[in-house]
């Protein structure tokens, strides 16, 4: 049901209910007043000579006229005494006048129960019958029965018709008055319906009432949804970009790996006697692939968070051991000595375990990857929880002073970091630098005594 019709029906039903209730109350009140007036008038009539006349000639009283108009009792006017007929009865409700009707049993029951006035409607509901016990309880005129035309019952056209007329007027007024409200609600509906479309129109509803407030609430929601949609679109674009970059980054070493494997196959088919070292480039490439994926994952996490998502106490001794164990197989195959030294008392440091391990892994991997056969790499953790240094020393070719600042910029976003060193130091050291910065560590590059590069992660305390 539409708003306008619902409003009209609701108001109409409310009006009908109220008016019917009022009609019923008024009807009840009028009946009571009528009975009181008749009873008072009957007593007054009998006390002012009526009793004597009745008892003198009870067989004919009240005479031929049948219907009499009682005189109003003295005092302030209260209620007009309606036209009625009156009959006299003795205390046993027997009339000496043969024209009198039989005394109604319901009224007799009420008087016997102790009431002085009893009232009832006639069986056809058209007349009101009132019985009044006189102050004396003897003689043929000790009880009067009066019959008069009754007031209309409350559930009758006379009472209900005005109610229905008023209700009709109310409904018409409601239909008319609801027009502007309905128009504004429709305007709001149209605005909300347009939300999903390309239109960026704001939701506007005139006025200063609840509908206008609803419009403001919708407008606020629209702005929030628009902002979230924009953020989602940005994320989707970033994800697409990430997948594209990752695919590119992974395809390159994968192609190199495939190339190594094809070359191995051709050499085997050509009858070459291959040594164990022939497989080394493929192994190195496969390890690089794994490390690259971890780096891309780390880059995505660093990109997504400003700070650190984890701050758990980390056993740095274990981190060093794990990283060295992880790179030992490749180092051995490349005949590079990879050693570690950690303090006797483990050093704990709050941070992100995965990122710190990845950062150190990148530094160690670079130290091995760019070193010569028979070269050396040493990973040394020194100090205490308050102040420590994690040093990766190698005797490889090092990095020129001009390049040092650039490779440790804590930025790996965009394609520059990848394309600059697509197959090596770029992303790994950038991530190491970013991770160091987020952990409040200093990353320093310097020459190793006797040649090579020393990379230090310093917690100055």
């Amino acid at each position: 049901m539409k708003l306008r019709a619902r409003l009209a029906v609701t108001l109409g039903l409310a009006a009908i209910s109220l008016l019917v209730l009022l009609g019923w109350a008024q009807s009840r009140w009028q009946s009571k007043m009528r009975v009181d007036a008749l009873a008072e008038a009957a007593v007054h009539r009998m006390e002012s000579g009526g009793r004597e006349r009745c008892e003198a000639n009870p067989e004919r009283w009240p005479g031929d006229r049948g219907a009499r108009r009682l005189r109003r009792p003295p005092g302030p006017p209260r209620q007009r005494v309606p036209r009625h007929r009156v009959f006299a009865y003795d205390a046993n409700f027997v009339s000496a006048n043969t024209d009198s009707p039989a005394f109604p049993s319901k009224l007799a029951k009420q008087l016997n129960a102790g009431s002085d006035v009893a009232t009832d409607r006639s069986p056809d509901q058209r007349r009101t019958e009132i019985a009044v016990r006189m102050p004396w309880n003897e003689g043929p005129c000790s009880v009067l029965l009066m019959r008069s035309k009754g007031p209309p019952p409350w559930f009758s056209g006379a009472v209900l018709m005005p109610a229905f007329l008023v209700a009709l007027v109310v409904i018409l007024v409601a239909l008319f008055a609801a027009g502007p409200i309905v128009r504004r609600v429709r305007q709001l509906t149209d605005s909300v319906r347009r939300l999903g479309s390309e239109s960026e129109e704001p939701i506007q509803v005139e006025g200063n009432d609840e509908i206008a407030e609803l419009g403001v609430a919708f407008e606020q929601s629209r702005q929030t949804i628009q902002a979230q949609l924009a953020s989602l679109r940005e994320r989707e674009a970033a994800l697409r970009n990430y997948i594209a970059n990752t695919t590119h980054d992974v395809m390159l070493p994968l192609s190199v790996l495939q190339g190594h494997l094809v070359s191995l196959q051709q050499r085997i088919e050509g009858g070459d006697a291959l040594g164990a070292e022939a497989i080394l480039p493929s192994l190195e490439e496969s390890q690089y692939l794994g490390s690259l994926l971890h780096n891309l994952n780390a880059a995505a996490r660093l990109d997504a968070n400003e700070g650190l998502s984890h701050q758990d106490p980390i056993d740095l001794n274990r981190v060093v051991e794990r990283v060295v164990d992880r790179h030992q197989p490749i180092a051995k195959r490349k005949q590079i000595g990879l050693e570690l030294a950690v303090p006797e008392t483990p050093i704990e440091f709050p941070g992100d375990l995965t990122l710190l391990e990845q950062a150190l892994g990148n530094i160690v991997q670079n130290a091995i990857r760019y070193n010569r056969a028979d070269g050396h790499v040493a990973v040394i953790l020194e100090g205490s929880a308050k102040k420590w240094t994690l040093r990766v020393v190698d005797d490889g070719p090092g990095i020129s002073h001009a390049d040092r600042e650039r490779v440790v910029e804590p930025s790996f976003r965009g394609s520059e970091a990848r394309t600059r060193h697509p197959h090596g130091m770029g992303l790994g050291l950038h991530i190491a630098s970013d991770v160091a910065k987020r952990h409040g560590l200093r990353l320093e590059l310097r020459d190793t005594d006797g040649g090579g590069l020393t990379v230090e992660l310093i917690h100055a305390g």
Partner: protein
Amino acid sequence: MSNRILLVEDDVSLGQQVVQTLSQAGFDPHWVQDGDAARDLDPDDYRVIVLDLMLPGTYGMDLLKRYRVKSEVPVLILSARDDTADKIRGLKLGADDYVTKPFFPEELVARIQACLRRPNLVGTERLVVGAIQVDLERREGSNSAGALSLTPVEFEILALLARRKGSAVTREALVDAALDPAQDGSRRTLDVHISRLRSKLGKDAIQLETVWGIGYRLSGNA
């Protein structure tokens, strides 16, 4: 129990590789492919448990919790997920270490050996490293030829290296532990003391290795 190792890993290829690697390294691997099957095993029947997290049936973390209720056996987690929360949760639940996939077989063996080595690191009164013995209480050292006549500095150097058996010790740590900084506490002086110590060790000096970039190590291999 000997060298029995429980491997809980659902991937057949990886499981076969790990079983082969562990067997070659001298361990006796027992491979279970299903989390539910691993639930009812007694962890104390094994020296180390290698546990994959993503398993069919029971999740690896739940197995870890179950094992930890009744056993202190070292548990090494195998994780393909590069997720810090998973690793930290595993360590908090009582895992001793983890290895992230992909890994070289040697890496896994090294981590298992590290798990087995760890409880033995805490000190005893008498340290034995190959042919070299150090009595910490009496402050005496000996080698395959008999008792060594060591200066206090040489004893401190040998004791520290023996305590860290098989691990490289930095020159700085040796200088701090053995030399008086007010007199001759320099790295050059340390090299002189090491040289003298080596000559006293005679043919066992081969155990006292120089570690490039770090310092020295007392190796158990004579």
